[in-house]
């Protein structure tokens, strides 16, 4: 598990997971999209608390290795300012057979999204910006969205 502030190179990461016993490899790439909840997005800013993100990410990968019969797994998350189309997160899993690679890859990305201390600020076409998942900030950026609770 790594946090990096330069572009992710999926080919290089994939090479690090090669294993003679592996018959399948699954990767997930999370990309920066140009829209969220009807708002045009220009770019994203990721804030990461790296000491804990690395620790928590490593724990998630260990959990996946223990839960599923896979051979290798890794994850890299970006921080800083990202443009549309850039890869924000990469997860790769190699295993003897494809099913467990798909399952473990999904497990890792889902847990990463739920548990990693990472925050995302969207910069909108209209000049506003807002932290994703922060209701108070989102209410400002998305005036039509109702405040929860």
């Amino acid at each position, binding site marked *: 598990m790594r946090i990096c502030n330069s572009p992710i190179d999926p080919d290089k990461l994939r090479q690090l997971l090669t294993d003679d016993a592996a018959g399948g490899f699954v990767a997930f790439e*999370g990309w920066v999209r140009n829209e969220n909840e009807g708002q045009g997005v220009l770019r994203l800013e*990721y*804030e*990461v*608390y790296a*000491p*804990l*993100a690395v*620790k*928590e990410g490593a724990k998630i990968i260990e959990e996946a290795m223990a839960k599923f019969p896979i051979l290798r797994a890794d994850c890299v*998350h970006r921080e800083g300012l990202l443009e549309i189309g850039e890869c*924000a*997160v990469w997860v790769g899993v190699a295993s003897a057979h494809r099913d467990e690679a798909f399952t473990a890859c999904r497990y890792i*990305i889902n847990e*990463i*999204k*739920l*548990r*990693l*201390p*990472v*925050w*995302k*600020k969207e910069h909108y076409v209209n000049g506003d910006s807002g*932290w*994703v*998942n*922060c*209701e*108070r*900030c989102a209410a400002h950026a998305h005036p039509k969205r109702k405040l929860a*609770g």
Partner: protein
Amino acid sequence: MNKTITVRYFAGFREHAGVGEETVSVPAATAGDVYELLKDRHGSEEPLGHCKVAINDEMVDWNTEVVDGDTVLLFPPVAGG
């Protein structure tokens, strides 16, 4: 009894507080108390369950006890990936 702790704010919490870190003296028994007592600082109305907390770089539950000298990290709802 008041405890002197260092609090670190992240993302929207930091922007609201205007600082990333400060030392406070608060009558807090648990991490959850810290969050509630510092509402004016982080500005969040989010329920505790939506946010996360770490003490001295370990993720902990909101009912974890805080002691003098702890560094309490208040995390807004995460949004990685």
